[in-house]
C-alpha cells in the first residue's frame, strides 16, 4: 500500500499522468473537430495522423517524404540557431565580465540591456538581412542577439552574488585580479550562467524558426509557412510544431546535463556527517 502511494506520488509518475491527460484532451478535441469541420488537419488533427505522416513513405515534393524534408530543413535552422547561440553566449559572458570589471562599463550598458528586451528583433529580421546582405548571416545575428540578454544579465548576477568574505579572503592572500576571477568569480557564476543558457537555448531555436517564416530560403520556418499556404500536406506543419517543441525542450535539458557534468559537487548528495 505504502509502496503504491510512493509510486503514485513520484515526480515521474505525476508528469506522465499530466502528459497522458494532455494527450486525452487533445484527442477529444480532435474528434470533435473531425466530426464538425471539413479539413480537420487545418485545425487540430489526431495525434495518430501526425505520427502516421512521420512514418509515411509518400513523397511530398517528388523526391522526399515529409519527415525527410523536415529533417533536412531542421539541419539548416538548427545550425544557424547553434552558431548564433554560441556567439550570443560568448558576447553575453564577455559583456558581463566587462560590466563587473568596470563601473563605467556597467553604468553605460545596464539601461541598454533593459532596452534590448523591448526591441522587436524578430520584426527587424528583414532589415538586418538587408544590412548584412546574407540570409543565413542575418538569422545567426538574430539568434545571437536574443541569446545575449539572458546570458549577460544572469552571469552578471552570478558575479555579484559572490559573498563579501570570499573577496576579503582573496584580498588577504594578496591575490591579483586574474586569480580572483579564475579561482573565485568565474566558478561561482557557473550556475547563474547556466540559468541564462537554459532560458536562451530554446529561445535561439524558436527565434530561428520564426525568422525563417518571415523570409524565404531553406529552414524549418520556411517549410512551415509553405505548408500553411497549402504548398504541401498540412501534416508537415504539425510535424514541425512537435519537432521544434521537442528540440526546444531537448536544448533546455542539454544545458542542464552540461551544467551537471561541470558541477559534480552539486550531485553528490551523500548524507551529512556530524563531528
Amino acid at each position, binding site marked *: 500500500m505504502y509502496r503504491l502511494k510512493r509510486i503514485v*506520488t513520484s*515526480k515521474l509518475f*505525476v*508528469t506522465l*499522468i*499530466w*502528459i497522458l491527460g*494532455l494527450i486525452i484532451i487533445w484527442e477529444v478535441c480532435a474528434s470533435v473537430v473531425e466530426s464538425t469541420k471539413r479539413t480537420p488537419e*487545418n*485545425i*487540430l488533427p489526431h495525434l495518430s495522423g501526425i505520427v502516421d505522416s512521420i512514418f509515411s513513405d509518400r513523397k511530398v515534393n517528388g523526391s522526399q517524404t515529409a519527415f525527410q524534408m523536415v529533417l533536412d530543413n531542421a539541419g539548416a535552422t538548427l545550425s544557424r540557431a547553434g552558431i548564433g547561440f554560441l556567439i550570443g553566449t560568448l558576447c553575453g559572458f564577455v559583456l558581463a565580465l566587462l560590466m563587473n570589471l568596470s563601473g*563605467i562599463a556597467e*553604468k*553605460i*550598458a*545596464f*539601461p*541598454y540591456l*533593459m*532596452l534590448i*528586451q*523591448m*526591441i*522587436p528583433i*524578430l*520584426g*527587424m529580421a*528583414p*532589415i538586418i538581412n*538587408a*544590412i548584412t546582405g546574407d540570409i543565413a548571416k542575418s538569422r545567426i545575428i538574430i539568434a545571437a542577439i536574443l541569446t545575449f540578454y539572458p546570458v549577460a*544579465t*544572469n552571469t552578471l*548576477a552570478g558575479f555579484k552574488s559572490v559573498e563579501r568574505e570570499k573577496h576579503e579572503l582573496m584580498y588577504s592572500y594578496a591575490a591579483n585580479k586574474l586569480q580572483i576571477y579564475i579561482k573565485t568569480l568565474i566558478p561561482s557564476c557557473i550556475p547563474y550562467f547556466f540559468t541564462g543558457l537554459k532560458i536562451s537555448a*530554446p529561445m535561439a*531555436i*524558436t527565434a530561428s*524558426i*520564426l525568422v525563417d*517564416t*518571415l523570409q524565404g530560403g531553406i529552414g524549418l*520556418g520556411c517549410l*512551415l*509557412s509553405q505548408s*500553411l499556404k497549402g504548398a504541401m500536406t498540412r501534416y508537415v*506543419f504539425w510535424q*514541425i*510544431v512537435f519537432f*521544434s*517543441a521537442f528540440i*526546444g*525542450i531537448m*536544448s*533546455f535539458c542539454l544545458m542542464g546535463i552540461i551544467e551537471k557534468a561541470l558541477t559534480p559537487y552539486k550531485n553528490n548528495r551523500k548524507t551529512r556527517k556530524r563531528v
Partner: protein
Amino acid sequence: MKTYGTKLKKLTSAIYPIAFGVLIFIMWQTQLLHKLLNTDVYILPLPSRIAEIISDNSSKIMENVISTVEVAIPGLILGSVLGYLIAIIAALFKTYGSGGLTVISAFNAVPIVALAPVITNWTKDVSPEASVRSFAAKVIVVTIMCTASMSVNAYRGLTELKPFSEDLMKSYACGKGKTLLKLRLPNSVPYIFTALRVSVPSSVISTLVAEYFAEYITGVGRQIRENILTAQYATAWAYIVVACLIGIIMYILLILAESIFLKNRRQVLSIK
C-alpha cells in the same frame, strides 16, 4: 560633503549611459554608423527622417498603436489571471500541481507564436468580421505566452513561504482556505511582479508577431512587415521605434506599480 558625493554619483550613473546614447545618435545622424555597418540611409534611415515620418503620420501610427495595445493588454491580463489561478490550484493540490507546472514550464521551450497561424484557423467561426476574428486569435496567442511565466512564478510565491509560517497558521487552527488568504496570497505579491517583468515585454513582442500572421491587417507589428515588404524601410523604422516605445512605456508603468506595491518589501530579483 558626503551627501554631495552621493548626489554626484547618482548624476554620473545617469550621465554615462546618456552620453553613450548621444554618441550613437550622432554617429547615426552623421552616417558614421552606416560606414561601420557598411549600409546606406535607405536601409538605415537617419533619425531625423524617422522622426519626420512619425510626426507626419501621427494619426495613422496612433491608430495602429491602439490596435496593438488593445491586444497586448487584454492578453497580458487574461494570461496573468489564468496563470495565477493555475498556480493557486497547483498550490492547493501540491503533488499533482507541481507536476503540472513542470509540464507547463516545458511550454516555455515551445515556439508558441509559431502556432499563431493555426490559432487563426481556430477562430474562423467566432465572427463573420475579419477584424474580430483576428483580434480573438491574437489575444489567444498573447494569453498563452503570458500564462506560463505567471503560473510558474506565482506557484513559487504561493509555496516558498518563510520557515515556520505555515506551522504558525496551523497553530491558529486555520484551514487551507484561510492559510491561502492570509499567508499564501500576500506572500506571492513580489513574485507576481517578477513574472510581469518577463511577461510585459513578451506580451508586446508576441502581439507584434501574432499580427504578422493575422488575417486582418492592423497593428504596429503588421505595419513593420507590410512596409518592409513594400521596401519602405524608413516607415518600417518609424514603426519599430514606436514598438520599442510601447514596450518601454509599459515597462516603466510596471516598475512604478511595483515601487508602490512593494514599498516595504524586499524585492525578489531572481528571474525564472
